[in-house]
């Protein structure tokens, strides 16, 4: 399983940021198809970018924010990149630490996501199996507890899926009125 130790580097050395399908598989996403993995990799890459940026600029004075904004708005991308690099080294010298930490946190988050998903789905299926076996029997307390937690898990899953993502789920309503 990938971890921070395997990629520990000195502060000035480069960091392996390659987000690959193998890396994703190692974090428990083997079940996804390759196009799905690619979508997830892009999401992970962008999330990491945003997270790193937010952490770096969280306490940055407005003047410096404006200064950096002007640099990256330079019409020549090459000039913008060179100046941005220098600006980062001058004003946010610890950015490599932040990138490395966020990279580690991203791994942990993805690992947590796949684990949580498995747990949620597992407990849901378990309750469904119990209900199938005992369709007319009132569940004992232990089942009730499990059922409640499963329902909560499902709610969590759906709330994590947020607004439109739940639309990915097959429409089970058929043509019935909503």
């Amino acid at each position, binding site marked *: 399983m990938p971890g921070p130790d395997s990629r520990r580097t000195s502060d000035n050395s480069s960091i392996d*940021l*390659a*987000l690959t399908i193998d890396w994703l598989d190692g974090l428990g*996403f083997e*079940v*996804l198809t*390759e*196009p*799905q*993995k*690619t*979508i*997830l990799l*892009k*999401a*992970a*890459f*962008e*999330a*990491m*970018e*945003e997270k*790193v*940026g*937010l*952490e*770096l*600029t969280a306490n940055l004075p407005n003047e410096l*924010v*404006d200064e950096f*904004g002007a640099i*990256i708005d330079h019409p020549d991308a090459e000039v*913008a*990149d060179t100046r*941005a*690099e220098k600006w*980062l080294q001058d004003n946010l010298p610890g*950015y*490599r630490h932040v990138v490395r930490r966020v990279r580690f*946190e991203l791994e942990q*988050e993805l690992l947590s*996501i*796949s684990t949580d*998903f498995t747990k949620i*789905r597992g407990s849901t299926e378990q309750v469904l199996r119990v209900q199938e076996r005992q369709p007319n029997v009132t569940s004992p307390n232990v089942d009730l507890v499990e059922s409640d937690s499963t329902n909560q898990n499902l709610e969590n899953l759906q709330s*994590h*899926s*947020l*607004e*439109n*993502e*739940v*639309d*990915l*789920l*097959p*429409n089970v309503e*058929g*043509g019935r*009125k909503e």
Partner: protein
Amino acid sequence: MTRLEGHQNLIDRIIVASTSLANSFPAVGPSDDGPDDLALALQRISTDSHVVSVWGDRGTGKSTLLKYVLERMMDDPRFCVMPPLSPELFGDQDSLLNVTLAVIQANLLKITQGATDSERLEFVKDLQRTRRSAAVNAIPLDRLVTAATSIGEFARDIQDVAGGTEQMWQDVQRLFRSAVTFDERRKSIVVAIDDADLMRSTSVVELVRQVRLLGSCDHVIVIIVGRENDIVTRFVREAREDSYVHVDRREFDLDLEKEIRGAANAQMRKTFPQWGTFQMPEPDWDERLGFTPTLSDQSILELLTTIDEVMAKNALDACLVDSLLALSHVARGIWSTGTMAFPLSSNLRALAQLSTSLKLCLDARDISSPTRLAQTLSSLVAMIDVPFGVQSRLEWNLKENSSSGSERGVLEAFIDFSSIYGAVQAGQWKELDALTVNSGRREASRHVEFDLRPYRRQFARWSVTSTSVRDYEDWSGSQGLLLAVQGILMHSPAIHLSNESMLTDGANLNALSFLQSVKLYGRQTDDHFLTFPHTPSLASTIRSISAWNGIVERAATERLSLRDVLALTIEAAIAIFFDERDADIESADIGYGKALDHLESVSELCFAQLRGKTGDPGLRQHLLAWYQRWVPNHWHDAIFSADEIVGFATRLVDLSGGTNPVAHPLRIYGDQSLGRRLSRYASDAGKTETVENRAWTGGYQTVVEALDISLPPTWGLIRQAWQRLGVAVAAGGVSMSLSEEGPVTSPSRSIDAGVSAAVATEESELLLAYARARLRNWASSL
């Protein structure tokens, strides 16, 4: 009347079954006393029903077949054939039994031919007693009392009704037994019922019950023809109305439904025994295509061909024809291949409806008179089967639009579909992940996502509630009716629809400004990005919806960027509001700059047309207003570069003659609509949370400056929040770039690389959605 060639075998089988049944009845003579009450009751519960049933769709020739069968029976002295009954003509107080007894009374001489006067008198007495008993039992108690009813009479009526039903049926049995004694060759009275399914929908249970009881009497054969499914359906519905009295109608009770279905099936099996059940053969589809309501009419095929020719000139008709064909479940493929993918509905009645609909729609394109249009609509609704769930006839109000001014529309239409309960749903939405991250890190740092899925679901569904029927799915009937009416209206000169109209397939007119689910830097926006001009007519409404559907489809299929989708809306708006035609989304070129060039040139022409009073002024004005008010909403810093935005805004200002409102109604001016919204957002920006939520609106800074929009000082907070977010994302991107080992590993590079053997499953879709949502939360949390 339908010709029935090749049905001889079926007629023979029905005659054989009836003769066999008649021969099984016990022989009786005039002097026989007959069985007592107990024997009659035992006989009734142990005897199989003497009912011959012929089932088939309308128009398949059931009535004709019944006619031939009865003619054959009339030639056989074993049968005394009564004139066939038509339940559709029954009044409120009529039941099968009292109508049958009335028919016997009317045919008294025929039945008692050969009887002595005293025998005939005795038969008449029995008949009258039975008729009175049947009539009293058929009338609800509360209707027995009239102003002239005496207490004594009422008491007698009560006594007759209370517990008198059993006795009444024994009288009926004795009556039929007596009726066959006047001719020694006679074995049975034949009672025929035509179009049984056309019985009042609230009386089917009673009809089936009486058929069964009548059919349990010796010496009577009941022949019933109709649509079995209709009878079962109405039976179930009626039983449901009774059963759900104490149950909340909104809650589907599975056990109760099973019970109702079980009872209906059991009753059908007992009433219509298998040995006496016959099915009408269905016509083949060649016959259906050649169907003509009358010999002088065009066949369905000819009408379809005519519409096909017209359609080639006007693509709009494709929508109409598809809609009409839905009435008969016809495959769409006929148009492209000239052949039918699968047979038409077997129901010739539906074909007659289709034929009339097609003719009306062909005629409707010339209709400019409100009165004629109303007549056409009335004709349509009067001749097609109103879908289940409609509690009352559809109504509309067409009138001269006195306030239309210079607009071309002459009618206002309000059609109340509120009594239809139906749901129409398009197919599943495809996964859409359109990110504008294709070229380089700088672009990649702009996170713009859009998601049309909610709208795909919204526009594709219309459902109207009913207070009197339960949830129901109607996939073809109500849709077909709705769209056929739409089609007729669409082909009349421009019509003004009221905002309450439900004619727009679920999207009301105000909803045609579509709020698109757009995320900028992972933050959900809540303003309108993807919009169409306001639609003042039905045609523009339908076309806009159609264009919207096309854009959603193409965006999903080609994974278009938001910028591309915005370009398509501009091209669609030009097609609908300037060219007054359907937008050809499928083959439209995509390019935002090009589309805006097009819009600009068209706007000049709009001004010229408005001055020259040519074209539809309403459409032109709405197009210009949209350009002014909503198109600038596209020009967000996350979607376009500053140079592009300045260019767009400058051209709009030039076209408008300035950035301030001008008095001339034919000019547009630099947007104040975007300014008003931004002012509102800025005014609300008093709290940190609000500022963060509205930070994305700060991305309009370039267009605000270019259009010289004046905003409150709090705009600065929003602007700063947006800038900080942009800087953060850019800083993140640069930091990662500088920290990387080797070349940038862009996940997007492998997007098309290889196809996994794994197939996307519900599980994997759910996992992906869950992971992306969690990552977004994780990214934005500090």
